[in-house]
């Protein structure tokens, strides 16, 4: 059997999105030896796609904003299942992390007095999102990349981690392969930070790329770590629906932040029909007030289009199901209407939403300055993931840290838009810092040859099989079923059925075969991603079955209401002694008095 190449680091970062790069910069700044591994080229991670902005209570546009408001908005959005310590640290530290990006070369859009401009977004009480038009993620990842390449970190591009190395009970690096040649690689490290992002490829309609196969969640789970909140998958209300080949591609919430409205086929603004109690006080009474809010009137309340994502997605779903949808099974999102208020609307839209303008022009032949877009929900973000300590980001495995989308806690049952980009830099930094600390305090590690041998054997097995079970068909079937059975609206029966389907798919995946050789072989890579997708899908399904209520991103038709009893628990997913999956309730630690008070005050 072919061998492998070994590298040694103090800290290994798996993933080069915003969280991974920020962690790497932090770790490298201490003089530690830092390695970064990523599946794609540097600068291409998901973070590059983020559009709308990064939430940070700097108060540049509305000086009533501060960390307390941001904290309570985040908790309300997450329906109080959040790890409150993370929500607190995030709100407190995001402004510094945003300013630091500027010091590293980021150029955010400006206010009139020359400071960082902030925009409105769903669930945020004040204009809070630092942004660059609708390409904020590009600005963030490029800034971190360009700063990071001078920090001393070593980057292994187009490499995929297959398994975490364990030494006793502690994490000791990772093992994987280089896509280009199919060469196996061992990265030995005293501490490992997972920053691998989400799971969107488990569903058919998604805004996520091929990378999002739940690798980090599955790697941690198999190594024995606890996962949390796996039932909470965010369906973004506005993805493209037509033409078919672009179905799922994101339409930024920034469109609604700039005044875009949702209408059904009868031209009715249906979002006014159903406003949840939790938000009644904060929502506009009519069209005029909503418009004034988007234009910065401090006395106006937000239009219902800017309610939280879970709610907007369900309202759209309801319109479509009731037969009031657009021709291709979505609803209309109209930004062109603002010409009623702004004389140079066309230029204004192009300047504020340049990439949306191009996306629709080039992919759908639609000029958004003149016509409405057709939109519908798309799988977007994973609130759940690796359970971590709020301060250090360490998982339940010593030496294994997680930050960014792969970690759970900050967002609870539903993430607010813009809270991810800030999450990445706040907790990326913390993970890097604490990983260094761990690496310094826990020196020597040892790599287990049997573990490596087993990993290589199972990776190469698909080449030797003769059965004609291709990886793409299995992946396709999985996405279809998860979309149908464990999607936006969930039912016990359907989810039980999904468990059966997953079992069948697991058996097929065990027989998967690939053709060709190990060199840059897409089929082989997909085959190796399958077990991760299947593991994550099972965790989502089992958690969603156990939680017998509707809350945040989880909507159950058979339990359509929120149940205060369930509000006391997070759901934990872990591996049992015989390899079976265990999902159980875990009580949420009580909120400290001062945080409780903040929430009360902001109600």
């Amino acid at each position: 059997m072919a061998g492998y190449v070994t590298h040694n680091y103090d800290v290994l970062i798996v993933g080069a999105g915003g969280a991974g790069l920020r962690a790497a910069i932090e770790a490298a700044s201490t003089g530690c030896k830092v390695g970064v591994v990523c599946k794609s080229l540097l600068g291409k991670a998901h973070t590059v796609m983020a559009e709308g902005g990064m939430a940070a209570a700097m108060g540049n546009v509305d000086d009533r904003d501060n960390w307390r408001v941001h904290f309570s908005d985040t908790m309300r959005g997450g329906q109080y299942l959040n790890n409150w310590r993370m929500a607190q640290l995030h709100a407190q530290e995001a402004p510094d992390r945003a300013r630091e990006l500027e010091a590293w070369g980021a150029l955010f859009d400006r206010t009139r007095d020359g400071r960082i401009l902030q925009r409105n977004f769903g669930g945020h009480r004040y204009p809070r999102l630092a942004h660059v038009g609708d390409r904020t993620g590009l600005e963030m990842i490029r800034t971190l990349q360009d700063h990071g390449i001078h920090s001393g970190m070593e980057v292994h591009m187009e490499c995929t981690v297959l398994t975490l190395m364990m030494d006793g009970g502690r994490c000791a690096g990772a093992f994987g392969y280089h896509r280009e040649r199919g060469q196996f690689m061992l990265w030995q490290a005293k501490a490992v930070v997972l920053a691998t992002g989400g799971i969107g490829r488990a569903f058919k309609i998604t805004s996520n790329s091929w990378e999002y196969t739940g690798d980090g969640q599955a790697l941690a789970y198999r190594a024995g770590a606890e996962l949390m909140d796996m039932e909470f998958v965010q369906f973004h209300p506005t993805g493209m629906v037509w033409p078919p080949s672009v179905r799922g591609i994101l339409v930024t919430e920034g469109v609604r932040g700039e005044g875009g409205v949702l209408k059904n086929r009868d031209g009715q603004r249906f979002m006014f029909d159903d406003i949840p109690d939790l938000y009644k006080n904060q929502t506009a009474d009519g069209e005029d007030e909503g418009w004034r809010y988007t234009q910065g009137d401090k006395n106006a309340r937000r239009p219902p289009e800017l309610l939280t994502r879970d709610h907007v997605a369900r309202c759209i779903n309801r319109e479509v199901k009731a037969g009031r949808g657009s021709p291709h099974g979505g609803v209309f999102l109209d930004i062109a209407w603002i010409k009623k208020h702004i004389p140079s609307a066309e230029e204004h839209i192009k300047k504020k939403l340049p990439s949306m303008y191009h996306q629709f022009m080039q992919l759908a032949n639609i000029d958004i300055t003149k016509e409405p877009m057709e939109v519908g929900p798309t799988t977007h973000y994973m609130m759940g993931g690796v359970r971590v300590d709020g301060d250090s980001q360490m998982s339940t495995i010593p030496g294994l840290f997680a930050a960014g989308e792969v970690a759970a806690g900050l967002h609870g049952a539903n993430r607010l838009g813009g809270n991810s980009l800030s999450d990445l830099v706040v907790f990326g930094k913390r993970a890097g810092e604490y990983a260094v600390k761990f690496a310094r305090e826990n020196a020597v590690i040892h790599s287990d040859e049997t573990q490596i041998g087993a990993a290589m054997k199972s990776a190469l097995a698909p080449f030797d099989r003769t059965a004609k079970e291709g990886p793409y068909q299995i992946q396709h079937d999985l996405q279809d079923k998860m979309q149908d059975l464990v999607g936006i609206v969930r039912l016990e029966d359907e989810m039980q059925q999904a468990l059966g389907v997953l079992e069948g798919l697991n058996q097929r995946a065990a027989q998967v075969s690939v053709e060709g050789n190990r060199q840059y072989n897409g089929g082989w890579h997909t085959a190796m991603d399958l077990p991760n997708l299947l593991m994550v899908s099972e965790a989502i399904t089992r958690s969603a079955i156990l939680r017998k209520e509707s809350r945040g991103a989880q909507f159950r038709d058979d339990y359509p209401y929120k149940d205060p009893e369930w509000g006391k628990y997070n759901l934990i997913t872990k591996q049992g002694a015989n390899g079976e999956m265990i999902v159980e309730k875990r009580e949420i630690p009580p909120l400290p008095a001062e945080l409780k008070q903040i929430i009360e005050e902001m109600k």
Partner: protein
Amino acid sequence: MAQATFRIWRGDKNGGAFKDYMVETDQGMVVLDAVHRIQAEQANDLAVRWNCKAGKCGSCSAEINGMPRLMCMTRLDQLDLSMPVIVEPMHAFPSIRDLVTDVSWNFEVKKKIKKFKPRKPDAPDGTWRMQQADIDRVQEFRKCIECFLCQDVCHVLREHQKHDEFIGPRFLVYTAALEMNPLDTEDRVADLKERDGIGYCNITTCCRQVCPEHITITENAIIPLKERVVDQYFDPLKKLFRIFGA
């Protein structure tokens, strides 16, 4: 829609050949969709890079009917489907396999360019003040998605293979973004002339024409940089100053 033929280059650094694939096409399909369909149904091991499928990451660069383009932003209804659609990897970089090329040279080039060095913060809280009008130009450059299509089309790299002497349009744009950042205090003009080979560019504008982000590479970035070089090196007074001043 009907069927279309895709003529895709298959091979690696040791050579290869075009292979034809017939594909069912749907409305609104882009070239990347067709390539994926071929990968899923006919050639599981076909090598292709992509991420966002929305023109945002710059991964899926290739040459389609001879034109450097993003596969995910090239709609089939813009192409003549009565003829085979020819899809090849970028020519300016070594082949890895099929449509994937070795673009690592670009990452090495970037490392050599002096990093951002801001002036002291303007405000006591450590922040700066900048007017939107003063950063509009730099924001244009920062739209770059690093697809390297401009590098692919530039004759200095593509035909003359001056990879050791010329950083190419992408990194001239990158340098321009640093040089024109209102906060930056570093000087990269000497490097531009002596190490980065800005003199090789003869403003053919080919790069600007293929840029999927419509960055005005030549007029807004390269020409102003050339002017800075001229100012510093060929303005007789400044030249004297440079010789005696340094």
